[in-house]
């Protein structure tokens, strides 16, 4: 695999850029692999990459039922942050943010990681106090956090409605400057190309239909492109985690819900950070193309449909207009839905499943995109060593039985509340 560089661009310019090689191969599945990863999104591809790079396990297949990054990797609002309070979450997401900071160089692929900051707005003194507590917890974990008053917010985001007339006047905010956005498709493509370069087979249009077992452990997968033998299977299928685990006879503490996102028509630069609303559920950033990228709450009922309903959409834009009255005359250009695997405590599950040889990386709720590098890194470690890394020990499936839940929001076992 030729490295991308300015010299390669110059070399291909001579022939009018008509002869760039494809970024990864399109192999037919082999009869057996050392590890099979189900799901060709960011998490699955990152897992395959780190299996090959960190653990020398290169006889790996990534099976994708559709196309690479066509699920939640290509449907999220691209926000990257590590502003968590619970120690296990803070450690994990900060590790992820540090991987993001070196990711373009690591993968030799520009993932357009932009540390433009993530600003959470507070709308009461009590909420600002709660943010101060979270910010202090973050700083104790070595994560950057700054508490802003209203004037500092105004200096940073002048188009916000910061008047006293606002329905929920802004009191201040918690800023993580190292947070930001990344180009989500590029993350899937970058990991795919780098994994392929290390020998990983990426097989698209290949759906898993069942598991083969031998002597109390998995021995392979049944797929729409024939059976594949393997002693280790990693599941990284986001919203379909429960559905795929059910093929192995397992029930999970997960419900699948649809979450919508949307973009406006393109605008001139108006917002150079990520802003989240504290009096409702709304988050917005501006893409390099100029579109406002927006999201909010779930549609709230169980759904496997990658499309949502208008009432949820209307609530999101209504929240947006409370923050940015300038949005009132914008047209929406596109909206879409993704299927979230909502866990019972709002934190992910990365670890072994009760069936030997079967591993799960799922339960990402709203927050899977920012976790992509660390998720792949710890999942690869878990599969290679058959035990979790210190960074994902707390994300075991068993935590629900032992009572060690990680409920960052304190919402209780109600998946759509997280």
């Amino acid at each position, binding site marked *: 695999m030729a490295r991308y560089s300015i010299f390669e661009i110059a070399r291909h310019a001579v022939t009018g850029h008509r002869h760039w090689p494809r970024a990864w191969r399109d192999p037919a599945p082999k009869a057996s692999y050392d590890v099979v990863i189900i799901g060709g999104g960011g998490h699955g591809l990152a897992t395959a990459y780190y299996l090959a790079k960190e653990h020398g396990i290169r006889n790996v297949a990534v099976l994708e039922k559709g196309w690479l990054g066509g699920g939640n990797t290509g449907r999220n609002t691209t926000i990257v942050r590590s502003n968590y309070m619970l120690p296990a979450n803070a450690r994990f997401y900060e590790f992820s943010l540090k991987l993001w900071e070196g990711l373009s160089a690591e993968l030799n692929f520009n993932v357009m990681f932009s540390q433009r900051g993530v600003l959470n707005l507070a709308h009461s003194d009590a909420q600002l106090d709660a943010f101060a507590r979270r910010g202090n917890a973050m700083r104790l974990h070595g994560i950057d956090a700054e508490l802003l008053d209203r004037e500092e917010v105004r200096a940073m985001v002048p188009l916000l409605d910061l008047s006293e007339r606002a329905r929920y006047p802004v009191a201040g905010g918690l800023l993580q400057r190292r947070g930001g956005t990344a180009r989500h498709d590029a993350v899937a493509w970058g990991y795919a190309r780098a994994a392929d370069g290390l020998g990983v087979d990426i097989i698209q249009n290949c759906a898993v239909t069942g598991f083969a077992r031998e002597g109390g452990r998995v021995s392979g997968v049944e797929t729409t492109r024939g059976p594949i033998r393997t002693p280790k299977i990693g599941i990284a299928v986001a919203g*379909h985690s*429960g*559905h795929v685990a*059910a093929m192995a006879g397992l*029930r*999970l*503490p*997960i*419900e*699948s819900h649809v979450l919508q996102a949307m973009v406006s028509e393109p605008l001139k630069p108006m917002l150079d950070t990520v802003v989240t609303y504290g009096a409702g559920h709304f988050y917005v950033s501006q893409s390099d193309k100029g579109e406002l990228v927006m999201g909010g709450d779930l549609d*709230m*009922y*169980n*759904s*496997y*449909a990658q499309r949502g*309903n*208008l*009432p949820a959409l209307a609530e999101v834009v209504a929240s947006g207009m409370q923050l940015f009255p300038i949005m009132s005359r914008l047209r929406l250009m596109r909206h879409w839905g993704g299927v979230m695997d909502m866990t*019972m405590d709002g934190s992910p599950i990365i670890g072994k499943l009760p069936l030997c040889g079967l591993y799960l990386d799922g339960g990402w709720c709203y927050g899977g995109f920012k976790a992509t590098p660390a998720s792949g890194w710890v999942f690869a470690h878990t599969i290679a060593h058959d035990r979790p890394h210190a960074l994902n020990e707390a994300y075991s499936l068993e935590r*629900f*039985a032992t009572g060690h839940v990680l409920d960052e929001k304190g919402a209780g*076992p*109600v998946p*759509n509340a997280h």
Partner: protein
Amino acid sequence: MLLIKCPWCGERDHTEFTYGGDASVSRVRPAAQAPPAAWHDYVYLRDNPLGRHLELWHHTASCRRWITVERDTLSHAITASVPAGDRSGSGER
């Protein structure tokens, strides 16, 4: 918009209702002295089916009654809605 047929009020927009989750779970509440594993299954585990799903909806903006709805989680087609707790209803297991 989902149109949910309330047994008392007729067909209404789903925004009149509050979603109450998987109806099959709440029907099998363990005894207080049941082993922790039974409570773990009850509180945390879900079938989370792709397809037919029995679920509770609370008609909060109107009659304030709970109903059990049978809905497809992929197509959103609603095939039954009966008063919650009505075991004779076509939507119950």
